[in-house]
């Protein structure tokens, strides 16, 4: 592929789009703001297209220049696309949801006051894209805040809905707390290594832990036997990121926030925020796992996190009757599977990274599809309990069929993309021999079948309480069909995703760090 413009142009154009939308929101005379979302969808789709014409940014790292913070590898580009696609899906959902939205906003008749609802996600998208490329703790922190602050506003967007306000308050407080953990952890790591760039931190750590006979250096590393301060910093960073990816025991905010937030925001949160959290987690972990003295301990922490997350997410999902809440717990459960792959990063790095990226791509498709259908159904049934799906198979075969597909994929039934993700995760776990996590994972999958199939049972086993047919907007119909088709296509033929993940041959890290 030809390189036409640098990758940073993607973020810049997204930011420009956001600014333009803000101006339009301020000055546009049309009361109904939904056209803004439609334009934004078009522009974002074009940016996804452009992203295939960009290539890696300058590979050299010059101290002090911007590029020490920003790197574009295949994974970063892939996650930028994930962010863009998620945002597009969010806007489609938001259009479907605007009728609900206006009910809970003062003075929002005729769509007034919904402009920010379309424009904040564009900024969040930019944040997510920066995060995908961030290789410096400073940029990681700044982009993470861009995302989180955007979400503070979005989560509490329906100002007249108390549940929504409660969700906003909880998200704000716990989000701020997690940010505190993250910054404090970064400070400790900076204090020890004197660096914020991940590559340089890694070099510094390798030097600090070097043993003369192994590394060929003369002096004994100054960090040997002295790692507790460093471990403290690492754990703080992991806690901060644990909040973002909804890993137990930092998952407390998830159910209430997911249930209270406007449904499109919930979907965005569970996909965008999680994907970004994991991409940062993988980048940070790569640094620490490269040091043998730390790797084992960090892996132990990850195993514990994964085990707790799997158990908590799956067990608490079992009795849920509200679909949004069910998805909240299931999102914790999926974080558990992803953490299994993270715990395998030390033993099987390439395969584990591939598994995480692939899993997230699949998770994006199936989560967005199920939330999109939830929004449509909830709008017509006036509720998002599982029982509101009763008899959907009769009311709307398309929606029920697509939902069945999404659920099958979430549960991990073969020939869907969700299964392939699970398979990759289990494969890396087998390769690294995490038998505890594998056995927990097996129980988790079986439990998952139970709570996911509840939705299918409601749709097909039960009779509809209300038999009015459901009409679907054309754009939504296209999105549902596209997502459903992609779930099957990538479940059978994963190559398009795998080629995007393939890294071009990269210079070894030590080589970069020497300059």
């Amino acid at each position: 592929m030809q390189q036409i413009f640098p990758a940073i142009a993607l973020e810049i154009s997204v930011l420009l789009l956001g600014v333009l939308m803000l101006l339009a929101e301020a000055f546009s005379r049309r009361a109904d703001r939904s056209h803004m979302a439609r334009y934004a969808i078009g522009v974002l789709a074009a940016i996804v297209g452009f992203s295939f014409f960009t290539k890696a940014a300058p590979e050299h790292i010059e101290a002090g220049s911007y590029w020490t913070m920003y790197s574009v590898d295949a994974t970063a580009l892939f996650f930028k696309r994930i962010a863009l696609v998620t945002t597009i899906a969010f806007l489609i959902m938001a259009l479907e949801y605007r009728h609900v939205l206006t009910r809970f906003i003062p003075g929002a008749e005729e769509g007034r006051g919904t402009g920010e609802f379309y424009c904040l996600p564009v900024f969040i998208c930019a944040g997510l894209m920066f995060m995908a490329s961030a290789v410096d703790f400073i940029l990681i922190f700044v982009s993470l805040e861009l995302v989180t602050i955007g979400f503070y506003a979005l989560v509490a967007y329906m100002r007249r809905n108390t549940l929504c306000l409660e969700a906003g308050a909880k998200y704000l407080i716990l989000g701020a707390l997690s940010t505190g953990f993250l910054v404090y952890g970064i400070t400790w790591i900076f204090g020890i290594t004197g660096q914020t760039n991940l590559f340089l931190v890694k070099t510094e750590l390798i030097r600090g832990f070097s043993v003369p006979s192994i590394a060929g250096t003369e002096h004994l590393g100054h960090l040997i036997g002295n790692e507790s301060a460093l471990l403290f910093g690492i754990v703080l960073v992991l806690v901060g990121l644990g909040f973002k990816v909804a890993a137990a025991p930092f998952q407390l905010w998830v159910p209430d926030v997911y249930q209270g937030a406007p449904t499109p925001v919930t979907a965005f949160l569970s996909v965008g925020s999680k994907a970004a959290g994991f991409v940062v987690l993988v980048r940070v972990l790569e640094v620490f796992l490269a040091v043998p003295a730390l790797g084992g301990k960090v892996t132990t922490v990850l195993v514990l996190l994964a085990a707790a997350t799997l158990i908590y997410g799956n067990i608490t999902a079992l009795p849920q009757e509200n679909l949004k809440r069910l998805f909240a717990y299931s999102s914790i459960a999926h974080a558990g599977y992803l953490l299994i792959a993270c715990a395998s990063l030390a033993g099987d790095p390439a395969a584990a990274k591939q598994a995480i990226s692939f899993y997230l791509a699949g998770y994006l498709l199936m989560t967005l599809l199920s939330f999109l259908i939830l929004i449509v159904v909830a709008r017509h049934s006036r509720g998002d309990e599982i029982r509101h799906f009763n008899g959907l198979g009769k009311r709307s075969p398309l929606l029920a069929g697509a939902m069945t597909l999404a659920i099958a994929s979430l549960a991990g039934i073969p020939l869907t993309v969700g299964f392939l993700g699970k398979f990759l995760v289990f494969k890396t776990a087998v390769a690294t021999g995490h038998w505890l996590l594998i056995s927990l994972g097996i129980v988790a999958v079986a439990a998952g079948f139970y709570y996911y199939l509840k939705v299918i049972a409601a749709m097909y086993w039960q009779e509809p309480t209300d038999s009015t047919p459901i009409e679907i907007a054309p754009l939504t119909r296209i999105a549902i069909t596209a997502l459903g088709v992609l779930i099957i296509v990538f479940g059978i033929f994963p190559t398009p995703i795998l080629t995007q993940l393939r890294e071009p041959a990269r210079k070894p890290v030590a080589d970069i760090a020497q300059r």
Partner: protein
Amino acid sequence: MTVLSLILLLPIVNALAIMFGAPARRSALLASWAQLALTLFAVLGYHRDAGGLQFQSTWNVASEWGLSLKLGADGLSLVMLLLTALVTVAAVHASPRIEKREGLFFACVLLIDAGAAGAFASFDLFFFYAFHELALIPTFLLIGIWGHGQRHAAAWRNTVYLALGSIILLVGRAQLYLADPVGARTFDMVLMLKNRALIPAAAQGGIYGWLLVGFGILISLVPFHSWAPSAYASAPTPAAMLHAGVLKKFGLYGLLRVAVPLLPEGAREWSHVLLVLLVLNILYIGLVTIAQKRLDTMLGYSSVMHMGYIFLGIAAGNAVGLSGAALLMLGHGLSIAALFAVCGYLRQNSPTTAFIDFGGIAKTAPFLGYAFGMAAFASIGLPGFANFAGDLMVFFGAFGSAPMPGALSFSAIQIAVICGLWGVVISAVYMLRAYRQMFMGAGTGTNVIADAAPMLRWPLLVLLAALLIGGVWPRSYLSFIQPSVEALIAK
């Protein structure tokens, strides 16, 4: 496009067409007969002299994992495909009148069929497994919507249990894939067989254990059997026929195709555990079957019990035993499908299926009497039916797999054979008792059963004919099965 891809596409396309409004029952009938015709065409077109894998087509899916959709068939898979096609025809014919959502019903039946056919025609470990799972949600829907009795509980238990089995199988499969050294890793089952020496002997026991438990759950090996009787008893007739007749054979086929040839050391390590479990399958479940008071649960348990014999053939591990197991898979699939078809007909025409509510059916419905009787005899293992030939080979194969005993010292597998022979007596007890109670004697007067309509007669005749052919001329099937099995276990 080979005939196999047509066999595979036909039911899937048909299911989609039905969902989009094609006339349900007629399309399903058409698809199932067309599938049977295509399968017969493939069977007749298979060059037995050349042997090996034929009708191959490969579609590369992910080359970096060595993953491709590889369709093909050797003699063994052709016989399984034939079983699938025969039972599907019978199942579609035996479907009762569907009051609600006829389209969804037949689409589900066809999807189960497609899953089974796909699994038997795939020579790629990934798709072999994936196709089987295609049947999971259709079964859940069939039992949950159109089932009988405690259908919701049965559907949940069945689905979650099978999902558990599948995920255990998945881990075993991942281990199998990773057991080969990097670079030689592939999902291609032909290549895996060729490279089987690469799997270290020390690793085999663990992998075989995972596969045995995973497949064992799907096959209803004791103690993982509790999902099966309730699911079969509550499932609508075609679902019970397809599930007990065909889908359950997937697990056995997997053991035969994957576990035994690739992991001979593992099979040896686990042989004693397997022997104990299979004897429990035969004797313990046999006794439980005798205690049943209703036809549907009795058939459900009997189908669990008969898996024990097939396991015995697999435990034998030699060509005779394995071929017998494969023949028995066919015979059991056909006979249990016929029995469930009759049972479903009785259930439609009577408020209960308890033995005590029936009597003298053979007087008012002689055809049903003959059909049930023959299927029951086949199921017991009486001479003249494919099951007899299969049983015989399994017993001989298993007995001969250990050195001949001295005065009175039998090896473990020979003791298992002796226990298994008692199982035949147990089967005779429950089957004949049910037959006498329901079909013979005086009628109850209140519960008069009219004879089966031609719609049900044809499929029963087809199933019984296939059983008889296997009984009087076992060579017809064995000439397909045996060379494939010998190729599998050839050193």
